[in-house]
C-alpha cells in the first residue's frame, strides 16, 4: 500500500527530501518505514534515540500498523519558542 512520508528540520537535510511516497507491505508496522530510510541514511540510525515518528499527525509507536494513505512524519528534536 502507498503512504506519504514527510521529513522535517535536520532530517530533511539528511534525506534530501521534504516529502516521499513509499510502498509498504500490507499490514506493515511503522518501524518498517524507519528501517527503510535508516538503511539508506545511516545518520538516521545514529540519531534514532532522538527521532520521533508521527502517523496521521499524532505521535505514534513503532508497532503501529500502517494503512493506505497514511501520512508518516519523521520528527527531530523540537526547538520552537
Amino acid at each position, binding site marked *: 500500500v502507498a503512504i506519504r512520508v514527510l521529513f*522535517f528540520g535536520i532530517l530533511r537535510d539528511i534525506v534530501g527530501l521534504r516529502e516521499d511516497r513509499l510502498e509498504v507491505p500490507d499490514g506493515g508496522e511503522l518501524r518498517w518505514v524507519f528501517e527503510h530510510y535508516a538503511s539508506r541514511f545511516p545518520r538516521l540510525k545514529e540519531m534514532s534515540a532522538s527521532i520521533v515518528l508521527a502517523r496521521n499527525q499524532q505521535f505514534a509507536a513503532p508497532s503501529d500498523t500502517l494503512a493506505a494513505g497514511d501520512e508518516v512524519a519523521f520528527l527531530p528534536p523540537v526547538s520552537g519558542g
Partner: protein
Amino acid sequence: VTVVVELTRTHIPTDGIVARLKAPSDGAVVVFEGIVRNQSGGRPTTHLEYEAYEPMALEKMRAIAEEARARFAIDQIAVVHRLGRLEIGETSVLIAVSSAHRAAAFDACRFAIDTLKRTVPIWKKEYFSDGAVWAEGEAPAAFDAAPARPRP
C-alpha cells in the same frame, strides 16, 4: 470564549491580540514574548528561520490552550508562533493569558510556553556569518498521560 491559536509568517501583532483577550471580569493579563537573540552559544547570529509540521503544530498548540484552561483559573489564552525568516529582536512566539487574578495567569503562561517548547513540532535554524545549523532541541514529547516518547 477567545482562544487564539495561530501560526503566522508575518509580524505577530501582540497589542491587538492582547486587546482581544481582555474582558471586564479580568484583573490580569500576562504576556510572554519569545524574541530572537543576537547570539547562540556565544556565536553571533545573523537571523533565524522557523519551520513547522503545520497541521500537527496547530493541533498541539490547541491542546496546550485547552489544557491551560482546564488546569488554571484563567479566562482567555493566545498561543501564536511565527514561521519563516525572523530578524534579531523580532517576536517568534507569543503567549498571552487573561484571568481574574494574576497568579493563575502567570502559572498558565509558564505552563503554555514550557509545554510548547517540549511538544510542538516546530524547528529553528540559526544562521551565522559562516553558515547555518539546526538548533539542538528536545525530543518531542506528548505532555502528561501520553505514552512515553515512542522511539524507532
